[in-house]
């Protein structure tokens, strides 16, 4: 009886199986996904091509001399990139010198020292620092930080080093207003800390706990574990994280525009105002025309090349560590 009812059940069904869905929709979807992914490539190529195209007249007019000339004279149509390049490099390097130790400290605190209940709120606080828009950092730097910095650092230090060789030029503020290359470096340092700290923290978290425990087991203190176990293990990716921070610091625009003072002269003192590539472009772009516009684009081109080299190295280092 069972067999009979099964036969009936099968016979009652008009079709045995559904028609297979047509492959056309499948192909269209795959094509759309592929095209979207290719768009990423196209955008990058487009950025490079468009900025190079815009900067070309300036490179033609000034040649390689553009890179080493410190002229920036709108009236005489003479433009050079040196002041902005130096300002960019110096402020970014200062940001690293100040920011990297703080980032490592935060990463070590979060992975080794922080009590369990506080880990998420503290990590969230640091991550929120990355979410604050650049322009807000600029306002904070100009209205809150700069006056304090002028009063408690620039003026006392300038009085102290006045007339001394080397330090007397390096740390002497002609106009102690609180804005300058060092101020920009400090603000940049605060801005890159969350990025460097979070990557470093992830890398430290990936180190097998066994390594840590065995070090503690033979009587190491926390400092020795960090110094001889964790840092050597994660060193490659930490360097990658630092490079990533450098990439961000080089291209940061609004915050720097607020606090660097936007001077077109070269000064030997890090307390004096300067300018970076990004701040120069942000300041002059909307009023620029002709060769000045082309020179700004050429500056953008230099920034593109430098940041992309830095970011490529950074990504290679961070990725190699992730695979290992």
């Amino acid at each position, binding site marked *: 009886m069972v067999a009979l009812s099964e036969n009936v059940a099968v016979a009652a069904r008009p079709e045995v199986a559904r028609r297979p869905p047509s492959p056309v929709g499948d192909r269209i979807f795959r094509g759309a*996904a592929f*095209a979207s992914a290719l*768009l990423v490539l196209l*955008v990058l190529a487009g*950025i490079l091509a*468009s900025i190079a195209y815009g900067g070309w007249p300036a490179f033609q007019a000034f040649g390689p001399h553009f890179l080493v000339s410190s002229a920036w004279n709108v009236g005489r149509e003479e433009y050079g990139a040196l002041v902005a390049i130096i300002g960019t490099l110096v402020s970014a390097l200062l940001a690293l010198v100040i920011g990297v130790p703080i980032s490592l400290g935060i990463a070590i605190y979060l992975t080794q020292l922080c009590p369990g209940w506080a880990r998420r709120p503290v990590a969230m606080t640091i991550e929120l620092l990355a979410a604050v828009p650049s322009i807000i950092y600029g306002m*904070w730097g*100009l209205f809150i930080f700069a006056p304090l910095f002028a009063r408690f650092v620039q003026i006392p230090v300038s009085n102290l080093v006045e007339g001394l060789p080397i330090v007397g030029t390096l740390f002497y503020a002609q106009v102690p207003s609180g804005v300058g290359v060092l101020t920009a470096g400090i603000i940049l340092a605060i801005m890159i800390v969350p990025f460097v700290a979070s990557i470093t923290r992830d890398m430290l978290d990936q180190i097998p706990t066994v390594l840590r425990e065995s070090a503690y087991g033979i009587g190491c203190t926390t400092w020795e574990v960090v110094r001889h176990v964790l840092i050597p293990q994660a060193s490659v990716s930490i360097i990658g994280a630092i490079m990533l921070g450098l990439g961000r610091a080089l291209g940061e625009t609004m915050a720097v525009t607020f606090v660097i003072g936007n001077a077109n002269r070269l000064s030997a003192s890090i307390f004096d105002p300067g300018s970076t590539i990004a701040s120069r472009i942000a300041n002059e*772009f909307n009023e620029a025309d002709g060769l000045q516009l082309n020179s700004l684009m050429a500056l953008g081109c230099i920034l593109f090349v430098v940041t992309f080299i830095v970011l490529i190295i950074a990504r290679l280092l961070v990725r190699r560590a992730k695979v290992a």
Partner: protein
Amino acid sequence: MNASPAAVQGTAPARPAPQEWGRVRASRRSADKILIVSCTVATALGAVVLGSILLMLIIEGVRGFTPALFTQVTPGPGSEGGGIANAILGSLVMTALGIVVATPIGVLAGTYLAEYGRTSKLADLIRFLNDILLSAPSILIGLFVYTLMVRPMGGYSGWAGGVALAIIATPVIVRTTEDMLRLVPGTLREAGAALGAPMSIVIRSVTWRAAQSGIVTGVLLALARIAGETAPLLFTALNNNSWFSPNLMGGVANLPVMIYQFALSPYENWRQLAWAGALLITVTILGLSIVARLVLSGPKGR
């Protein structure tokens, strides 16, 4: 290594056994103390900066929160009163435009990287370049869109602003979509394929559904990222002191550029509006980020 950071965070740090400090050399003891103190100070410093930024915005900005702020347009130089309604509206429209353009592209590209291009060299290259685009200076994207759209169209426009924001948002969405899709177990896909569904249907109705909350979070993060972007808008949408026009041609008022111009102006009234706008935009962005991160870390971890 497909463990999500949240899962990794869940592991308690290995704490040293209680040391018999009496048997430890003084130099080692002090090195340890210095490390602990300096790491704690570094972390406290971060918290202090964030607190000080928020405090500054609240002290300076709350005074400006009047009904006029949300109903009136930005005033002319040196005049009294006015609000930032046009800048809020312009920001909303351009950010929405950016997200609407970036979301489908970003989700599809992320899907390609996670589902179709797991092993191909081209996908590796795209993944790498997307990571680079993720941290590229936004000012360069502004210059790109200026050359691409503002120049040929003969003037600043909201469209160009929206496109610039879309270019910044896309890599964020690509990255999070790919990461989230990779967390979906392969057995789900196999189950779908075993029912005879073609790959595209498996992705749409199984994989995407499984990774839904993660993908939405990526979009939220992208939104938080572009809401405060100033540099690209400076070269694309610029600013405007009049009501927003629906055709988006000509300069369009927006919060970030308004804040930039007003904060550095000599007029007290403008500066007050800039502070109010800054408070508004920061609270919005931090709120978005907190929501996104809570969703992302989910119920896992502590």
